[in-house]
């Protein structure tokens, strides 16, 4: 666990996850194994290999710039936890609080 080069509490906070001590220990151990695996990959010679961000053998998939119908306001807000008229309503948020 000590050799996991990330702060499990920090990462959990970024992902808005609340972990129990047991979960923190278990996930840290799992991440530690992942880092071992990545360490192995880092030993490989990848010179000449293009970094891959996508495994689908496609590029340049575009749509035409054509307007399609949007949802109605009521449809858009149907699953909103809270609404106020035509708006989604959320608890107040301040810079620095998120």
């Amino acid at each position, binding site marked *: 666990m000590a050799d996991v080069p990330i702060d499990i509490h920090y990462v959990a906070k*970024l992902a*808005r996850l609340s972990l129990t001590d047991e979960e923190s220990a278990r996930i840290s151990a799992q991440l530690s194994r992942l880092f071992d695996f990545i360490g192995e990959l880092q030993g490989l010679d990848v010179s000449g290999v293009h970094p891959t*961000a*996508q495994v*689908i053998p*496609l*590029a*340049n*998939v*575009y*749509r*035409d*710039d*054509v*307007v*399609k*119908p*949007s*949802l*109605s*306001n009521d449809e*858009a*807000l149907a699953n909103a936890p*809270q609404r*106020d*008229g*035509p*708006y*989604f*309503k*959320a*608890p*107040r*948020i*301040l*810079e*620095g609080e*998120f």
Partner: protein
Amino acid sequence: MIDSAREQGLETEAVIGLEVHVELSTHSKMFCGCRNQFGAPPNSQVCPVCLGLPGALPVINGRAVEYLCKTGFALGCTVSPYSKFDRKNYFYPDMPKNYQISQYDMPLTTGGSVTLVSGRKVRLNRIHLEEDTGKNTHAGAAISRSEYTLIDYNRAGVPLMEIVSEPDIGSPQEAEQYLSELKGILSHIGVSDVKMHEGSLRCDANVSIRPVGTQRLGVKAEVKNMNSFRSVVRALSFEIERMRECTRVGQPIVQETRGWDESRGVTHSMRSKEQAHDYRYFPDPDLVPLSIDAALLERWRLELPELPDSKRARFAAEYGLSAYDAGVLTQEAGDAAFFEAVAKASGDAKQAANWLMGDVRKCLQLHGLTLSSSPMKPAHLAALIAMVKSGAIGGKAAKEVCDELVMHGRDPQDVVGERGLAQTSDASAVAVIVDAVVARNPESVTAYRGGKLKALDFLIGQAMRESRGKANVDVVRSRLQELLD
């Protein structure tokens, strides 16, 4: 370094880099078919993709890629042979997906520059493509007291390009020149309507100061919330002065984000860099990469219209305009085209420029209009110029007709006819009036002949009154001089 500058009493210089966000004027959004239009009713231009509903997949709007590449060509950038989209992860309700699709390490273009009127070259770091966020309204009088936030996602997913400059800008005035030049170029390529007041052109600034003559960058602040060219100049001036004051009193400058408060005229700390976001960028698995065909890039490059700097040079050479006039008339593509149409139709470029930059501009400003929002037609302004030149109407009447053109798009012939504004240049008709005025005012005639030249103005005024303003004042004057001299 700053401390030693203080000890030595050295002058400091400002170092500014700008991040400009430009909404692209595509018909539809970046990754879905929702309409891209400012001012629609809240949450009326949203769909499962831009609302981030589970299972909805984004597809790249080809025109947004084209617009960004064209911008890149206009600014001398290098279009990357391979580019991709990444997810910028954060929790804030302006993006319902909890991430924004952006470009992290492989932007569509790199390099390039913007040349200011001063001749200074501001290098560009990169231009990348992303999606705009939704708009939050904090209910209540002030953010700090508001209890909740209202969200409109119409803007979420609108194609947005971010143009990042190097820290090559040396003053708030240069920052304004940079924005103005950039705005002119974007307006000419037609990729954005670049309206700062509607948020289609937005700007953040990285500011620091350093002793004159040194190269190392000082600690920077990122200034946000500047909503007009004027507020950019004010905010940067304030921030530079604040930093100089810090060094004067020996207070450290901390790296932080500072918001510009327009009404109070100050910047205030929003968050320090210690709490900076960790966005955990990673490639968006929903989108395939971009590798734009060289032939297609070349076609886009060739489709670029004439840009402001070459248009300025051409206006000066072709129409004999001053550098200043050419600069003003090429700020907006539509204005430049309007000028050219009037210049061609009237055959008098100088008068076309004078009218557009004088009475027309005054009238537009008075009524909160622009040339593109006014119904005036170039042919009608050209006709007005011709009427003044031929002496068909006088200067005062011309201004009155001009207002009708600008406000209501009317034909100057109609306005002149309807209001009886045509002036009489017929020498014999004018002579009858002038002769009568001279006969009625012997004392003025004596005064004029005795050397009181002002008496002539009185007689001209009397004759103009007699003609109810319709006599050509030049014809009146020459008849009077003929009689008296």
